[in-house]
C-alpha cells in the first residue's frame, strides 16, 4: 500500500473512548454566504481548551444531542492566539441545520481532531496549487493561514477557487490579504451576472492559464468529487506525480476512529487514513463507479 500521510503527532486525545464528546460553546457566528456559516467554538472545559490542537485539513465530529453527529473540517487558523476552533459548514444535513439554529452561548458536543492533515512540512520548498471549489475551501483555509505564517518556506502559491455564483464565494474579504502575501488568488464562478467582473469557468480549466513545474509543484485539492477528478486529470497531464497530488475525500464519517466502518473506501477508513490522501493511494479505484 502507498504510504499515507503520517499524523501521529496530531492524534485526538481519546484513543479508548467510544464517541464520548467534550462540550464546546459557540462564541461567535459568521455568516459567510447563503446557507453557509462559520461557527467559532471554545471548549467549556479549560483543560480541554488548553490541550486542544489541530493541523490543517483535520476535522471534528460535532454533536447536537437529539440530532446526531456530523464530521466538519476546521476552517480556522490552527495557530490563532485566541485558539478558537472555527467550523465553516453548509447548513444542509440534520445536524448542521440544527446547529444553524443555535446562538452564541449555546453548546454542542465536539470530538477530535481526527484524520490526516495537509502535509505542510513536507511541502516546504514546493510550488503549491490549491485547487478547490464550493465548500472545499474551508478545509484548506487553515493551510493558507499556515502558509501566510511562513510564506518564505514555500515557492509559488496559487489558489484556484470556484463557486456556483459570485455570492457563493466564501471569505471574500480575505482575498486581498492573501494576495498581498504573494498568493496568486484566482477565483472563478460557474455563472456570472453583469455585475461580476471576475472569471466565469471551472477550476480545472485554470491549469490552461499558467505553467507548472512538475518537478516542484504539489496540488492540494478539495471540493465536489467530480471537480477533484478533473483537477487530477489536469495535474497528471502536466506530469505532476500522483504522490504529490493531495486530495481531501468526503465519505460518511461516523466515529472518526476507523472503527464503525461507514467511511470505508477500498482499504482505507477515510476518517483515519484520510481525509487527506496522496492521490497515489487512491489511483487504483478512484474512477470505479460507486466504490
Amino acid at each position, binding site marked *: 500500500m502507498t504510504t499515507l500521510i503520517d499524523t501521529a503527532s496530531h492524534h485526538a486525545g481519546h484513543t479508548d473512548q467510544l464517541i464520548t464528546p467534550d462540550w464546546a460553546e459557540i462564541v461567535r457566528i459568521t455568516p459567510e454566504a447563503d446557507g453557509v456559516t462559520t461557527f467559532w467554538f471554545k471548549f467549556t472545559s479549560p483543560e480541554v481548551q488548553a490541550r486542544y490542537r489541530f493541523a490543517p485539513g483535520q476535522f471534528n465530529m460535532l454533536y447536537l444531542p437529539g440530532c446526531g453527529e456530523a464530521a466538519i473540517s476546521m476552517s480556522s487558523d490552527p495557530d490563532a492566539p485566541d485558539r478558537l476552533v472555527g467550523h465553516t459548514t453548509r447548513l444542509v444535513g440534520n445536524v448542521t441545520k440544527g446547529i444553524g439554529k443555535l446562538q452564541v452561548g449555546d453548546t454542542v458536543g465536539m470530538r477530535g481532531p481526527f484524520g490526516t492533515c495537509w502535509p505542510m512540512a513536507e511541502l516546504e520548498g514546493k510550488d503549491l496549487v490549491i485547487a478547490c471549489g464550493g465548500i472545499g475551501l474551508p478545509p484548506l483555509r487553515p493551510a493558507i493561514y499556515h502558509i501566510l505564517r511562513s510564506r518564505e518556506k514555500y515557492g509559488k502559491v496559487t489558489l484556484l477557487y470556484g463557486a456556483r455564483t459570485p455570492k457563493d464565494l466564501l471569505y471574500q474579504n480575505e482575498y486581498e490579504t492573501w494576495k498581498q502575501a504573494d498568493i496568486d488568488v484566482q477565483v472563478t464562478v460557474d455563472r456570472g451576472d453583469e455585475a461580476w*467582473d471576475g472569471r466565469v469557468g471551472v477550476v480545472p*480549466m485554470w491549469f490552461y492559464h499558467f505553467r507548472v513545474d512538475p518537478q516542484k509543484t504539489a496540488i492540494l485539492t478539495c471540493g465536489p468529487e467530480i471537480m477533484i477528478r478533473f483537477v487530477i486529470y489536469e495535474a497528471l497531464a502536466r506530469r505532476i506525480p500522483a504522490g504529490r497530488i493531495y486530495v481531501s475525500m468526503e465519505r460518511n464519517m461516523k466515529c472518526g476512529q476507523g472503527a464503525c466502518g461507514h467511511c470505508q473506501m477500498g482499504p482505507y477508513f477515510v476518517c483515519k487514513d484520510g481525509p487527506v490522501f496522496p492521490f497515489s493511494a487512491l489511483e487504483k479505484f478512484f474512477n470505479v463507479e460507486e466504490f
Partner: protein
Amino acid sequence: MSPQDEIFAELQKIPWFRGLQPKHLNQMAEIASLHRARAGEVFFREGDKEDNVYVVLEGRVALDIFVPHRGKVRFYTAEPWEVFGWSSVTPTVHQRTAGAVAVIDSFVVGFDAEKLRQLCEADHDFGYLVMRRLANIVASRLMVTRLQLLDMFANPPEMKND
C-alpha cells in the same frame, strides 16, 4: 511602429502562434486587426452576422446569453491568449450564438473569419493546424460546459429514505 508591425509583434506573443511558419504568421497578420475595448464594450451580440474570430491579448471578455426574466447570463470568460467567437470559422454556423463583452478594459486581435476559412481551404496543411487548434478549443469549452451543467456546487438534495 507601423500598424502592421504592431499586429505582427502582438501575434508573436500568442503562445500558439509561435509554432507557425513565418509564411503562415504573415498570412494571419494580413487578415488581423487590433481592437481596444473599454469595460462594458460589446464585441458582438447574439444573432449578429459573424465577421471575426478573436484572441484576447489583455483583459477579460465575457460570453453571455440573454435569458428573458433573468437578464444576461455569463457562462464563460475568455482570458489572455484565449479564443472567442470561434464558431465563425466553422463552415455551418452563420450567426453569433452568444454575445461577447469586455468585462474590464481589454485588448484583442480579430481575424476575418471568412478570409481565414479561405486560407484554410487554399492550404490544407495550414488549415489542419487551424482546425486542430479549434478542436482543442471546442473540447475544452465542452468540458467547461459539462462541468457547469452538472451544477456541482449546488446544495445536495435532502436524503430520501429507502
